[in-house]
């Protein structure tokens, strides 16, 4: 069981000067896909960094499973916005590092790396270095590096933000396939509303800074009622009335935040 729980979390930076997060209460159930959207600078990435153990709350607690987060670890794999692949390691070596750290035997490592490389469709690129790959390929390696650990929790920080539109769509469809086939607890940070609605079970909308949870939108029940899984392509899902309705609702909610920032 690997739920993520934000329990009355506050986070300030600069010795209390900048209030980044205010009273965040958020429960992400085991194997649930939660997306967080919000205006830029609202602290959504900070939420992910707290769950990852890169930062710690100023007050309140962040729990994964039933224990408080005290440090980063392979049970909570992170996919970074800027990929963060080791430039001096090949594709296979990048994917393999976490398994080596867990002392997985060599033969098993090989099999799992090969499986992960196959999953992201990069067969034949095992020996390539990151700088020889396109941005989309690099991000797939970063995702494989996280997936290969078979983590209970997957933390994704705008993982498709740096990709071009076509690649992004392919990656989103791939992620949906992976997430449905092998569900994990996912915390997905994005500023893309459509992406959030397409991928997530629930979407949390944050206010502008200091970030609070403004509203949580249930997508899963709508998705299942309207059988989005029958749509092969993202654009078919996006054409559905139920999708448009949810998207517009979230847009409007975010727009209020943006307008608020201007006044």
């Amino acid at each position, binding site marked *: 069981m690997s739920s993520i729980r934000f329990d009355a979390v506050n986070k300030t930076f600069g010795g209390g000067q900048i209030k980044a997060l205010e009273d965040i209460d958020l429960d992400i159930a085991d194997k649930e896909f939660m997306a967080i959207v919000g205006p830029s600078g609202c602290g959504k990435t900070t939420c992910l960094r707290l769950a990852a153990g890169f930062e710690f709350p100023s007050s309140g607690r962040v729990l994964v499973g039933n224990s408080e987060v005290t440090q980063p670890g392979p049970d909570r794999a992170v996919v970074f916005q800027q990929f963060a692949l080791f430039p001096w390691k090949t594709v296979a070596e990048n994917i393999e590092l976490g398994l080596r750290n867990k002392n997985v035997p060599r033969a098993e490592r090989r099999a799992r790396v090969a499986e992960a490389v196959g999953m992201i469709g990069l067969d034949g690129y095992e020996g390539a270095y990151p*700088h020889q790959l396109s941005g989309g390929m690099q991000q797939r390696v970063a995702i494989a*590096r996280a997936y290969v650990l078979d983590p209970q929790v997957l933390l994704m920080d705008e993982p498709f933000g740096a990709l071009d539109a076509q690649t992004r769509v392919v990656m989103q469809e791939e992620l949906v396939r992976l997430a449905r086939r092998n569900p994990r607890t996912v915390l997905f940070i994005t500023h893309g509303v459509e992406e959030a609605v397409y991928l997530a079970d629930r979407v949390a909308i944050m206010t502008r800074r200091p970030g609070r949870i403004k509203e949580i939108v249930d997508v899963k029940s709508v998705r299942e009622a309207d059988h989005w899984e029958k749509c092969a392509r993202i654009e078919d899902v996006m054409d559905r009335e139920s999708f448009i309705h949810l998207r517009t609702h979230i847009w409007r909610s975010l727009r209020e935040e943006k307008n608020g920032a201007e006044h």
Partner: protein
Amino acid sequence: MPLRRRSVIGLTTLALLAALWFLATSVTGMISPGRFPTPGDTWTAAVQASVRGYGDATLLIHVLQSLKLVALGFAVSILVGVPLGLLMGTSLTAEALLNPVFMLLRPIPPLAWIPLAILWFGLGDTAKIMVIFFAAFVPSVINTHAGVRQIDRPLIEAARMLGTPRWRFIGEVVVPGAAPMIFTGLRLSLQASWTTLVAAELVGALAGLGHLLNLAQQDLYPGMILVGMIAVAIFGALTTALLGAVERRTVTWVRTAGEPA
């Protein structure tokens, strides 16, 4: 620019300089041979130093002696300097402990260590290695430290997230991450090694290129002075080129197309 074209330009520059030299000294006599030697004088001095020897040893012996000391001093410097820089870059405690010492040691010109070195170790090799060490380990430490500090933070976080144990983290993340800066430090250390070696040999030595230069100055022998200088230039450049070759073989991942190799 293609390598061939660059080589042609480089060689042309050198040939032009040589021609100017020849013109200014041998042909027009604008510069008197007592101040700066003619190419002929220099050649004679080079032959003399190579065949008969100068200052109790042939040019080859002087060169080998200097090369040996540079290699030893440089090796000691980087064996101490790079780990120290890694330690300071990865541990705040080490940084807090060592930084004040550095602040104090850095302003001392390396050559100011020469008297103490001679007092401790006499005119032998050890004194020179000590002086080279004091000059050359500083750039290694500083650049390694800076290199560690400027590793992309997401890379460090990725390594921690993947549960990388400390020694593997240093060996597979910190060292390669800092490698370009480490090599910058090594290059500066190598330069410092040559500079201080020649200076140290000038002050007191029984062999070596600095010793040869010192004797040639006492003998008022411009041709030999130039031979010594050219030898330092050539072997300084050769060792730097060797280090560059090692760097290109090692740090293969930062080079991109269009960047000068």
